[in-house]
């Protein structure tokens, strides 16, 4: 029983509560860095590292942090880890640093991380929070890799730089540009909606009651409430 619940925390983030496709969090980095598989993977791994570390630290500090100032505390913890990841990437993967550019420091405002800190890590123990971070991170990375694969395959005819489709047809570079990003995201999300409609898991837990901002939210007009719910 114990093991099963631990496993379900881990697998929650993959499909059922996929942060990007079901919870609709972290849309900016998803769209911006899924231009190719490598970029998407790099972004996913960086965000996952921050997510796991910040989840652990916030779970450790959850009883010390006063409730009124928890958001600034969370942001400080997250910003610290983002800076670490930023410096590590800059030192060991300068090419990735160049292609992610502005979006690397912007992990700090990635709503997935703050959302999980608020929704999960501030209420659960260390191990559960770490597992939640791993699961969510894998879900995020997986989505980015899938979107990156689609965009790179159609847009440039390659996968991870290896030419595949480019021998048969020329790449449609629009897919690696901005409109292609929105289009592929829409397609993937509609597909997930399509395969999960009868299981009816997708619409649960996307109301205001599960929202990270619900305490700050005055009447729900400031969020995507009712969008999917």
């Amino acid at each position: 029983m114990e093991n099963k619940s631990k496993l379900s925390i881990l697998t929650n983030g993959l499909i059922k509560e996929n942060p990007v496709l079901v919870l609709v969090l972290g849309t900016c980095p998803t769209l911006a860095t899924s231009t190719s598989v490598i970029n998407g993977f790099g972004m996913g791994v960086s965000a996952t590292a921050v997510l796991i570390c910040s989840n652990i630290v916030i779970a450790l500090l959850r009883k010390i942090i006063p409730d009124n100032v928890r958001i600034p505390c969370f942001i400080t913890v997250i910003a610290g880890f983002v800076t670490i990841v930023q410096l590590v990437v800059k030192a060991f993967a300068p090419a990735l640093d160049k292609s992610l550019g502005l979006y690397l420091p912007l992990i700090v405002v990635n709503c997935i991380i703050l959302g999980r800190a608020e929704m999960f890590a501030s209420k659960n123990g260390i191990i559960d929070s770490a597992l939640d971070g791993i699961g969510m991170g894998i879900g995020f990375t997986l989505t980015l890799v899938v979107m990156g694969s689609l965009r790179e395959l159609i847009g440039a005819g390659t996968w991870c730089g290896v030419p595949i489709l480019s021998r048969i047809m020329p790449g449609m570079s629009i897919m690696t540009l901005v409109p292609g990003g929105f289009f592929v995201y829409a397609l993937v999300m509609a597909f997930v909606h399509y395969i999960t409609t009868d299981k009816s898991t997708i619409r649960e837990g996307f109301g205001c009651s599960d929202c990270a901002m619900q305490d700050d939210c005055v009447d729900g007009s400031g969020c995507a409430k009712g969008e999917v719910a």
Partner: protein
Amino acid sequence: MAKYVIIIISMVLVNNYPLAQFLGICPFLGVSKDKESATGMGIAVTFVMVLATAVTWPIQNLLLDRFGIGYLQTVVFILVIAALVQLIEMFMKKNMVGLYKSLGVFLPLITTNCAVLGVCISNIDSGYNYLQSLFNAFGAGIGFLFAMILMAGVRSKLVDQSRMPKSWQGVPIVLLTAAIMALSFMGFGGMFS
């Protein structure tokens, strides 16, 4: 003067934040349901962007760079923005009740809006001077407002009144709308070289 006009026009049309640079997508998708809240959010973001730039630019150039602690940029900027938003909210609540009623709802959401942190960092990265940074932030805000109003207009007319497959309802159809809007904004791409 022409330089500043070019900065603003290029930020509004060519480098529009939500439609060409993927910044500020969350409010762009979430708050664009009706025109009033879209306008309110757009104005609030513009306001915070200009103020945040006005504060973070001197911090970077006079403090962080001078003492060689530029690596603290992310931490310092996000804390400054969070504190600033809180301060604006408190100030508005006390002194500008009318404005607070129309914009106050959006202020807590702005802290985690990547467009605000994005404009502060990109001002530093592109080496703008103080005045150029302020104009850049203002242009980015106006561009965001422009995209929000366009999106709200399209959504109220098209998205909410048309029939579509069930799996496309909600966010996917909005993303598709955004794709078409982004496509048309690409037409501005060659305006400045």
